[in-house]
């Protein structure tokens, strides 16, 4: 079963490889594929690891990291909306005020996190996860 799955995977990869190679611009595709790895391993991951290190010893770090993770992902999906260079010829593409939408959604995330943190403190049952490590 495992072998079949692995072989099927290899077959699909080969098919994908052929489909990529059929493109007149296959070198560009390969550069962008490699670029995706460089972007992640060289930039996004070190950044996230650094934030993880900085918040490592904090009280309530689980909640803080969850908030950063949620907020960070919202920023990430908003980037294409905010950075798209030229206005489109079509008024129904990007019709909203996206800086405002992003700020509101981040504010809601922070407010919910604060409420959750306050609720935990109020109940006096700080979870073990939030006690600093020895």
């Amino acid at each position, binding site marked *: 079963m*495992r*072998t079949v*799955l*692995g072989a*099927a*995977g*290899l077959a*699909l*990869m080969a098919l*994908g490889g052929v*489909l*990529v190679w*059929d*493109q007149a*611009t296959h070198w*560009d*595709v390969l550069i*962008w*594929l*490699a670029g*995706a*790895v460089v*972007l*992640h*391993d060289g930039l*996004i991951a070190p950044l*996230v*690891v650094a934030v*993880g*290190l900085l918040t*490592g*010893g904090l009280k309530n770090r*689980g909640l803080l990291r*969850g*908030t950063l*993770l*949620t907020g960070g*992902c*919202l920023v*990430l*999906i*908003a980037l*294409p*909306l905010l950075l*798209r260079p030229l206005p489109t*010829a*079509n*008024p*129904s*593409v*990007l*019709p*909203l005020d996206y800086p405002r*939408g*992003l700020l509101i*959604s981040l504010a809601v995330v922070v407010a919910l996190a604060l409420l959750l943190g306050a609720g935990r403190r109020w109940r006096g049952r700080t*979870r*073990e*996860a939030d006690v600093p*490590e020895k």
Partner: protein
Amino acid sequence: MKPRLPAVRPPVFRGRLHDARTATSIGRWLGVAIAVCFGTGLISHYLQHQPGWLLDVLPSRPVWGYRLSQGLHVASGIAAIPLLLAKLWTVYPRLFAWPPLRSVRHALERLSVAVLVAGAVFELFTGLLNTVQWYPWPFSFVPVHFAVAWLLAGALMLHVAVKYPEIRAHWAKESPGTLALPTADGPDRRSLLSGVAAAVGAVTLTTVGQAFTPLKFFDVLAPRHPDHGAQGLPVNRSARAAGTTQVDADAYRLTVAGPRPYTLTLAELAALTQHESVLPIACVEGWSKSAHWTGVRIAELLRRAGAPPDAGVRVISLEQYGAYRVMEMGREYAHDPLTLLALRLNGQILTADHGFPARVIAPNRPGVLQTKWVTRLEVL
């Protein structure tokens, strides 16, 4: 987790949660998201670029089929973003494994992981940019996104096969591998997984309203909003882009070619029996909305031209530029009573952006094939 900065390169991660249990927990959800994305992507691709042998077997029901499929495609792709980042974070230390290559098998494993990471980041990145119609790369989006999807699906299957022992050992809380992990990490792992779940929820809630209209109130970070567009409906291809802003209603003629060809003016077309269909327009870029369409049944126009009951139809648009100027429709669609040559949208005459004077609206079909500015039908 609390990694300590290493004194030497490559970095040594002593931090927690970079373990197989966390990778398995996040990986299975990421796997589901990618599988849904791949499956719905295939549906979308073959509906948009219908090969000849599929033309007459594609079903026109359920009417919301393409809407659901494409809504899921974009939603699962967006949900996969937090999942992929979290998954890659847990396994990131393995990038610095020392020595970098231990054996041929290890080299192959690392190669497959490189393809997996490249393919996953590439697909989510290009897909997200496609939804805002931004194409900063030198290749064309659709064939390359399609090709890399196969590469990614294959790499994922190979990865699951290679990692099967670890997956099995860490699938559940009570699995032997999981029980062997330090229990002190449990709460941190739970809070990481809750954080990932919150991130998935947040990115989904703020975008899914572009296709799932009951949640349109929360739709603040999607490139489309169901209420923004001419006649209360978004548009993908504007009349300006198609070169059809000025269609002279008096000079307009609809030609129907077949055994008994004929030509109609706009007034004659409007004088034929009008039917109403409530059908969604669902775009390949992930947005969709239902609307009321009024017009003449395509099947009746074909019958009048002497078409046999199993005939398909070729539809030709007035648009001057564009890959979808000519569209073919199989018999299932052409003879569906809901398939209209629509003259009105939500009770009003079509605006130029919605295809004035006449457009196709058919159930269970991508928006690019709902041809606008129709001027000619040919019985096939």
